[in-house]
Structures are given as structure tokens and as C-alpha cells.
């Protein structure tokens, strides 16, 4: 792997052609203390390796954005890397609670954390608006729930029918990182299987990083393949197995046992810290 042609950035939101770099370079170049950071992947293709690299580099005060925080954000919140969490479902899917997330919200351990929560439909539409560079999205939802008082949502009236609808503000993370099965040497990326909101997250973000299972000479379009061209990505990094214990369809398998095991590891503060230290994710 070597860097590909790089064109100077110009105005208008156009980006460089993606550079293929190491994961540590990609993270060091984009993720600074205090940024808003979206690591997306809906159950599938969760960018664990990238999130762990953020922790290895010791980043703190992050605004972490993710529809489904999952184990990855439980780990990041648990070591105190997050100032704020923006999300729509903070559970360990099929297992139960995210204990570190709960501990942070319930007891402020290891630090207090600001929470902004939405419904899935709200978060998805916030990403859609961000990808379209519109300031907001219109949807039916939120009305009649207590979410209205506790999150960023407003109403707009349809100018044709008079119906009142919900408006959610665009999500524009400083940085988005997603994981995909493959890229070519120009940083064009393909992912397949459950696509989640990864394309939207990349397009909504100020800077985008994609970690990939493999780098190939030429992308062959797959059934269900979602292609993201290299010129809307800043960095591509080779990170085989980079979504484990989540999975990359056709390449790795979800480690369901680890999802269950996490319930035990994360339940206790010291057990959690010990495990994170062993993994080099906490100093």
C-alpha cells in the first residue's frame, strides 16, 4: 500500500482523493480531543479497530455519535473518553444493558456525560439531512412522547396541507469512521450486507475514514454492494478483522459469545478496567 494521487483541497466541500494510510495515521490525522465523532455500523460492520485506535491514542472529551452505542461505545465511555453521547439505542443487543454507559449516566463514573438521545428514525433522518447538507429533515415522529422535552426536535407545518410534522436538525460530525469489506487502490470503497447509515455518515461528516478488510486492485460490484467513491473519503486504512466482535458479511462472523461475555466484563468497574488495560485500551 502506498499513498495515491492527492489533489489539493479546494473550496466547496470537495475533498481530497482518499489516501491509503495506516489505521494509526488515519486516526491521528482526523480525531483530535474534543471532536464530534461518529463511528457507524448498524450491528454489522461496527468499526471496533478504529475506535480502539482512538483509545490507544488517548483521545478525550469526544462527542460520540452512534445510533446504537453497542460494546464499542461502552468501552469508550467506560474509560472516560466521551464528553457527550448522541444516540438512539444504548443496549447490548440480545444481551441486555451496556453497563459502562449506565454507570456513566447513573453515577457519573468515571465522569459525568452529557446525553442527547433520539429515536432511530430521528437519528437516521438527521444523517440524511447531513448527507444532503440541508439544515434539517422532516418526519412523522416524536409527537406525544417525552423525547420532545429532552432532545433537539422542533415542528414544521406543511405549507400545502397544514399538517404539523417533526423537524430534526442535521447531523454533521467532525469525523465519521466506518468499516467496509474492501477498497481499491484509489480508496473507492464497497460494503455489502446490512448497510445501516454508513453512507450517510460518511457524506454528512467533515472528514471521513473507512477501514477495510482488504484492498483489491479493482472493485467488482457485489449484490447489495454499496460503493462510496474515494473522492468523498479522506483516508482508507487496511484493518482486517476491524469490525470484530461485530462482523463483516462474507469475511468475518459475529462473535456472539463475546457479546455475552461483555455483560460479565463490563458489569464491574475493576474487571472492566483490568480487561481494557490488558487490551492496551486504557493506560
Amino acid at each position, binding site marked *: 500500500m502506498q499513498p495515491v494521487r492527492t489533489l489539493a483541497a479546494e473550496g466547496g466541500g470537495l475533498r481530497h482523493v482518499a489516501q491509503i494510510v495506516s489505521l494509526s495515521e488515519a486516526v491521528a490525522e482526523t480525531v483530535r480531543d474534543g471532536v464530534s465523532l461518529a463511528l457507524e455500523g448498524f*450491528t454489522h460492520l461496527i468499526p471496533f479497530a478504529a475506535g480502539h485506535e482512538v483509545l490507544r491514542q488517548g483521545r478525550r472529551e469526544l462527542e460520540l455519535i452512534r445510533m446504537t452505542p453497542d460494546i464499542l461505545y461502552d468501552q469508550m465511555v467506560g474509560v472516560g473518553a466521551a464528553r457527550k453521547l448522541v444516540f438512539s439505542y444504548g443496549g447490548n*443487543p440480545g444481551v441486555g444493558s451496556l453497563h459502562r454507559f449506565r454507570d456513566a449516566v*447513573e453515577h457519573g463514573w468515571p465522569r459525568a456525560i452529557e446525553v442527547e438521545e433520539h429515536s432511530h428514525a430521528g437519528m437516521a433522518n438527521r444523517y*440524511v439531512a447531513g448527507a444532503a447538507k440541508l439544515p434539517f429533515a422532516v418526519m412523522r415522529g416524536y409527537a406525544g412522547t417525552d423525547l420532545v422535552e429532552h432532545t433537539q426536535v422542533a415542528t414544521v407545518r406543511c405549507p400545502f396541507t397544514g399538517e404539523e410534522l417533526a423537524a430534526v436538525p442535521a447531523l454533521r460530525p467532525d469525523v465519521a469512521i466506518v468499516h467496509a469489506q474492501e477498497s481499491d487502490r484509489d480508496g473507492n470503497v464497497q460494503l455489502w450486507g*446490512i448497510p445501516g447509515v454508513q453512507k450517510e455518515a460518511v457524506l454528512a461528516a467533515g472528514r471521513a475514514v473507512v477501514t477495510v478488510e482488504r484492498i483489491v486492485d479493482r472493485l467488482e460490484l457485489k449484490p447489495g454492494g454499496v460503493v462510496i467513491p474515494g473522492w468523498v473519503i479522506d483516508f482508507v486504512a487496511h484493518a482486517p478483522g476491524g469490525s470484530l466482535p461485530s462482523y463483516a458479511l462474507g469475511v468475518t462472523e459475529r462473535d456472539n459469545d463475546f457479546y455475552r461475555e461483555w455483560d460479565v466484563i463490563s458489569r464491574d468497574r475493576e474487571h472492566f478496567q483490568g480487561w481494557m488495560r490488558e487490551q492496551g485500551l486504557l493506560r
Partner: protein
Amino acid sequence: MSGLEYTNGELQTIVAARSLAGKRSCFIGVGRPSTAALLARMVHNPALVLVYESGTIGAKPYRVPLSIGDGELAQTADLVVSVPEMFNYWIGPGRVQVAFLGAAQIDPHANLNSTVIGDYDRPRTRLPGAGGAPEIATGCEEVVVIAPHTTRTFVDHLDFKTTRGERTTMVITDLGVLEPAGGALTLTAVHPGVSVEQVRENTGFELRASDSVRVSEPPSGEELHALRELLSR
């Protein structure tokens, strides 16, 4: 009456599966709802279209998935769509008929709480949050809630109203079945061996019972066999 031994949890799943007979499509999360929907496809309704919020429409999993995004769901689905498309083109416009939802708290109007127990800003228990529920509950035609029957779950006032109850047609618990009548959830069936009094003791609000509370049909041999076979996969 089959005389078979079974748990009330098993019967709860079986009753939920029966509610999908004759239905066209069902939106499901993980856990018991998923088990019930797979059981429905095995026993009552092989054509039932299963929809998971991960974007898999028409999934045909062989095993009960641990997560809503398991690979098998994508591989067996009729189509796989992005999360925005799932909510904007499929859930929102009401293209999915029945939704199975769970909750930590349920009030007499079938409103649900899956956000916090206690005060929002200083919660006693922080729950996972809304997920897809608010828009699923207003998008789908009918909502079936599946929940354990305790006074902690069935409460007079929710600590947080995450999801509206207007479209709920049935709440299936390990003790019986509640249905809305006259604006409030009403006990319409008890599982065999459960008394109305026992259900009331486990309900945190004043529970009305219908004039003729039914007794749930116990599991048939086929149902029980299929359920156990499914869970052993």
C-alpha cells in the same frame, strides 16, 4: 388440553406466535418477539414477512438471531435496505402490519417506557432508550406488546413516555393477555392456572377485567415441539 408440561414463558411466546396467524408482515426486535415470530412462520403462517429494523425485509432465519443485524438475516432477506429507507419508506408509511414491542414500563393506555426509571436527569436505572419504537408504534397498523407481568412493569404513571400506545391491540405477558377496551388495558385472558386476582396483584395499576375472561389455550404438542426445537438450533 394437551397435558404437556410447559412454562408460562413458553406459553407467552406461543400466544404471541398465534397472534400472527393470518397477518402479512411483522416488525420484530430480538429476544422473545423474534422467537415468537419465527415460531409463527413454523406453525401458523409460513408466508409471514419478518421485518427487522436493521434493514432486512422478508428475513427467514433458521435460528433465533442474537442481534437484529445477524448475518443470517441479511442473507435470507428478500431485500435489505438502509436504515433511513427502512424508517422512511417502510415503517413510517405503514407498510408493515404488526409490530412486536417490549418495554420496561407500561401504563393503562399502553404507553411504553424504555428510556429511564426515575428522574430523566438523575435516573435510577438508565434503560437503552427509544430505538425504533416511537415511529414503529405510530407507523404499524397494530402493536403487540410482549412483557413480563410485574408491578414494576405495569405502572400507573410512566417515568418517561417513550412510545405511544394508541395502536396497541394486545399486551401478552407470562400471566395472560390484556387488550384495550374503553380507553384502558383490560384483562381478557389468563394463562391456565393463573387467577384474575393473581394478575391484579402483579399489576401496578387498577386493572379492569373483561366480563368473560378467557383461559389461554395451552400449547399444542406441535407448538411446544416447534418452540423447543427452534430454541435448540
